[in-house]
């Protein structure tokens, strides 16, 4: 069975120029991710994993190479087109949750659907379903500051699923959580993956990476190890 290719990176390069000095954050990164994969991106700080995360998440553009997302070459897309891609193709989960404060859990989950121009009633229905899916149906009207860290992250995950994106991108999703909550969140990702979602988790912790099926290890802006390479 031919797997759908969600991500294809070809010789991705990212350079930052600060004054006269040029820093290479990523060089010659190539890999592909198929639909339904569960991947950890690992590396020390400064290894380029955050830069990679930004490029994968269409928040940033590579300075070289080619990035195919769900069959489209997005390497040179303009800002508004990238906004559209983030909205439709990517579900973000951040380390610091990044829920909008003083806005209910329900409204937070609805947010990506507002930008996707989903009608209000359908939006509400979907948001309630998603909160139920992450086990927070009783908390829909709570404000983020009334929720625990683990609960906030689950709201964020519900939000990430709002527009049924082909890719879930989680940046250190357990970085601000205690061990018990971390395990809960990772189990939730595992369950989502079992249900067919493609999940990429950026982390520096081995026990978090252990939940995934494939680990991409980075050092000094280069991909140094890919446990899934053999599957290709």
């Amino acid at each position: 069975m031919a797997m759908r290719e969600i991500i294809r990176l070809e010789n991705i390069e990212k350079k930052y120029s600060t004054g006269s000095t040029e820093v290479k954050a990523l060089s010659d990164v190539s890999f592909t991710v198929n639909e339904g994969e569960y991947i950890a991106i690992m590396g020390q700080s400064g290894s380029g994993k955050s830069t990679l995360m930004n490029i994968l998440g269409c928040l940033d553009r590579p300075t070289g190479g080619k990035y195919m997302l769900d069959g489209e070459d997005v390497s040179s897309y303009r800002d508004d087109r990238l906004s559209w891609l983030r909205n439709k193709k990517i579900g973000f989960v951040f380390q610091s949750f990044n829920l909008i404060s003083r806005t209910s859990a329900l409204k937070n989950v609805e947010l990506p659907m507002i930008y996707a121009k989903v009608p209000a009633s359908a939006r509400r229905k979907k948001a309630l379903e998603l909160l139920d899916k992450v086990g927070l149906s009783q908390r829909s009207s709570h404000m983020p500051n009334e929720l625990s860290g683990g609960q906030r992250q689950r709201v964020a995950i519900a939000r990430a699923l709002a527009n049924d994106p082909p890719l879930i991108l989680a940046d250190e999703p357990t970085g601000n959580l205690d061990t018990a909550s971390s395990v809960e969140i990772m189990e939730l990702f595992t369950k989502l993956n079992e249900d067919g979602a493609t999940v990429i988790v950026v982390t520096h912790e081995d026990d978090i990476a252990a939940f995934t099926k494939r680990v991409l290890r980075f050092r000094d802006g280069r991909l140094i190890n890919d446990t899934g390479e053999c599957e290709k």
Partner: protein
Amino acid sequence: MLFIENVKLAFSAIGINKMRSFLTMLGIIIGISAVIAIVSIGDTMRGVIADQFAGIGVGRIYTYIQASDGVADENSLFSKNDIDNIRTVFSKDIEYISGAGSQSGTAIKGRNSVSINLTPVQGNYTRVQPVKISGGRMINQKDFESSKNNIVLDENTAEKLFKSKNVSGKTIRLSYNGKNGAEITDFTVVGTFENNKSVLEKLLAGKGPETAYIPESLVFTPDSSAFSLDIFISKNADSKQFKKSFINYISRTKNQTAKNIVYESAESEMKSADSIMQKLSLAVGAIAAISLLVGGIGIMNIMLVSVTERTREIGIRKALGARTADILIQFLTEAALISAAGGIIGTAIGIGVVAIGGRILNIKVIINPVMVITAVCFSAAVGIFFGLFPARKAAMKDPIEALRYE
């Protein structure tokens, strides 16, 4: 993103910082209420002036001949015959014409005396000039024809002389210039009229002696000659055309050049008073509008603070798919809503102040709905204009930087 979503969002953002939003609005509230109040006061004054002239009669004309050598002679004075001729020639346009000007006199009752402004009238005077009779009657055609010593006083004068308003049939002595020169004669009071002016009208009209009416035939006879003419033209008359043919006629019959004929119409006086008033209220309104500018700058200031505070929110929204335009419109909507709300509150306060003032001063207040709509739209425009810079700043934020902002 849908417009309605933006409005909801703006409302919740305003609601989160109620105190701050209110203080931001304050500039606009003060500006708009000042503009509305000032323009309404101006319009009201214009209305009062118009009423004042309606009282005098818009169609009223005062005319006389300025003798070129400074000596009044038969060519610069109007005889009874001249007046009759004018009345006949312009019978279509002239409603009322009199050569007997007002004079000052003194009404005396016992030890009380009051200065009054005597207006000699013909029997049909009320056809051109409303007089609010409160007791008895006005001077009529019979009084005029029989030259009876009858007088109509205003209520205040009656009160001063008799300590009563009900004075019909009573007698006073009147010192005035009759047809044979100065005299003191008994007069019968046949009626009184009401003369309640508002504070503002009194202010504009000044405080002179009150008017009293006597039959014109008492002071003006076929032998008299008039220095000036008091003419009322009918409502249907073309005032411009009348002026032209009237001056033409007088210069022909009295052998005068047109520039010697002084012709003052209440209509043109009113127009000039009205235009002065209008310019004045516009000028003061424009000064008040400067406070709107200050209010707008206040909005810009707070929006800039708000954009900085909400950098992270902007980052989140962008990460979740908000385009530059979505963020721009979100913040613009918020700014416009704050200032439009300020505009509406300011309008309510402005109208309220003017309405209460009008009630206290007993004046019919004029509030122009077009101005109110303009003021609210203008305040929203101020919000959009001054919100544009902060909103642009928000919209242009780099999502990665914004997400990292603590």
